[in-house]
């Protein structure tokens, strides 16, 4: 990861900078903010629909697996006549299967969120950057990575025109 990282004092400046760089053809941009900014989510967040699929499919898988376990234990392996009710009394099998579906879906959503977001991690290069700890508090960071539109001195000049508080180069 090589590139430049600029620190801004306000979210408005960061959003403006992202827009400008996007217009100039930069594609490998990333922003770090203490709280979600809807504009940035739209510009840089990417698609999150995979997480919905992960949740839905896990719910189906969890529900189906639990139902299968119930069916096999209560109908096949250990059939018990309870007051003459049918062995496959599906109504009674639903509650446990449904709550398991929710359990699977919730766990998969957390795992999916972390996995798609490149987490969990012990460490990240950016944490070595002086002042980056304020990305979760009161500063707004823009990372411009080396991409076809990237031209170190040119990009730095462009960033400087956007009145950042500080710019730092990330070496290889």
């Amino acid at each position, binding site marked *: 990861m090589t590139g430049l990282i600029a620190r801004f*004092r*306000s979210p*408005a*400046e960061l959003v403006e900078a992202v827009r400008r760089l996007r217009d100039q053809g930069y594609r490998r941009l*990333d922003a*770090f*903010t*203490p*709280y*979600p*900014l809807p504009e*940035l*989510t739209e*510009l*840089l*967040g*990417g698609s*999150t629909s995979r*997480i*919905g699929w992960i*949740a839905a499919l896990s*719910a189906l898988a969890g529900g189906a697996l*639990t139902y299968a*376990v*119930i069916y096999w*234990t*209560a109908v096949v*392996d*250990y059939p*018990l006549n*309870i007051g003459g*009710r049918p062995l496959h009394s599906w109504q*009674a*099998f639903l*509650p*446990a299967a*449904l*709550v398991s579906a*929710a*359990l699977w879906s*919730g*766990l998969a*959503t*957390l795992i999916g*969120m972390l996995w*798609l*977001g*490149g*987490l*969990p991690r012990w*460490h*990240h290069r*950016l*944490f070595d950057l002086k002042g980056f*700890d*304020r*990305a*979760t508090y*009161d500063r707004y960071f823009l990372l411009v990575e080396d991409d076809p539109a990237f031209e170190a001195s040119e990009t730095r000049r462009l960033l400087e025109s956007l*009145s950042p508080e500080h710019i730092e180069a990330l070496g290889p």
Partner: protein
Amino acid sequence: MIAPIQNPPIDHVIDPPLAERFGRTWWIGIGVALLGVLFLLYGLRGPAFVGIGVWGTNIPYVWGFDIASYAWWIGIANGAALFASILVLTGSSLHTAVNRFANGLALGAAICAAVFPVFHLGRPWLAYWMIPYPTAQGVWPQFRSPLTWDFWAILTHLTAIALLWYVGLIPDLATLRDRAKTRTRQLFYGLAALGWRGSARQWALHRRAHRIVALTLIPLLFLAQAIVSFEFVGTLVPDWHETRQPLHFIATGIQLGIAMVLLVALALRRRLGLHRHIDDWDIDLLAKLLLANALVTAYAYLDGWFMELMAEPPIREALLARMAGPYGTLYWGGFMLSVLPPQIFWWRRVRLHWWAGATVAALVLIGIYLDYLSVVVGGLVRTNLMIAAPTYAPTVAEVSLLAGTLGLFLLMVLLSVRRLPIVSLYDTRAEPA
């Protein structure tokens, strides 16, 4: 043009968890909570080493304090979690104020609730028999039984509430990691924050995931609260074996959750000076919600009177026995305390009065406990057996267990207030000013 640099409006929330000292009141609170935990240890000693004979339960009172307390705690958990997850989805400003600790309260209450069914088993060390795993004797859990459903419901409930809470916490843990001064705290929050950097991608995924977890939780909570009532409905006892029971338990459960959230919101806002985050508007809305839900509970009672008093004799007599039998006080106490005190919230000035709010919330919490006790004990007063019906009274062991879970709950609330941001930091700031 450079905007003036301001201190972010979250320092009020960040400071308490990172403060070196927390004041004497907190330590007194911890002392009280630890005393409560001693009661819990005493309460658990009986069923663990002697057996559930130490409880006052005996035929016909097969259930007593244990199940009433369980239903009460799980009601608080379900109500508060439902409230929290609806807030995540609607994203109102009440969400910012109370969502985090409503969720925390739900988690604490669910942990307290889980104590009861496990020890109610009589042989708590065999609780793992509820898990369908291949045993040498070839016996499987009975999935036609509401007790088995409940095992799944509690398990899922605990996990799902913890998930919603934790997913919401991750970015805030990262903030604390970066603000913490000592190495131990940096490590503690750093590990918990899982390397969160707050990149645009991570925020986008986080928002989606948080909403999905909340969305999954809502039907789950209705189901879990209904399953609590299925344990009654699944028996043949008249008045328990009624289609309306799930409705009654859901109405009272949500009311419990809102009452607990209101009570703790008032206490926290006073003690920690969070008036800026939990403002009058939030308290006003919470009080209105409690009032609205009291009307739903009143409807549930009315429905019981109409449906059961017009039903066939065994059902009618069972309800009459609950109303006018030896435990009639529980029934009417439950009705009056859960429905009447919130009516005072029709007046706006009362809604904003902190001690009036706290008193009403506490009365509602007590009232619904009485209601559950009335369902459990009053429901079993007619034995249909040829024995002289004794009366049920809780023993010291049972009361200790209830007091002990209250202590455990207080301990968890105090510890989370001490070390975690009780108002969502990022939501506070993302909120349009």
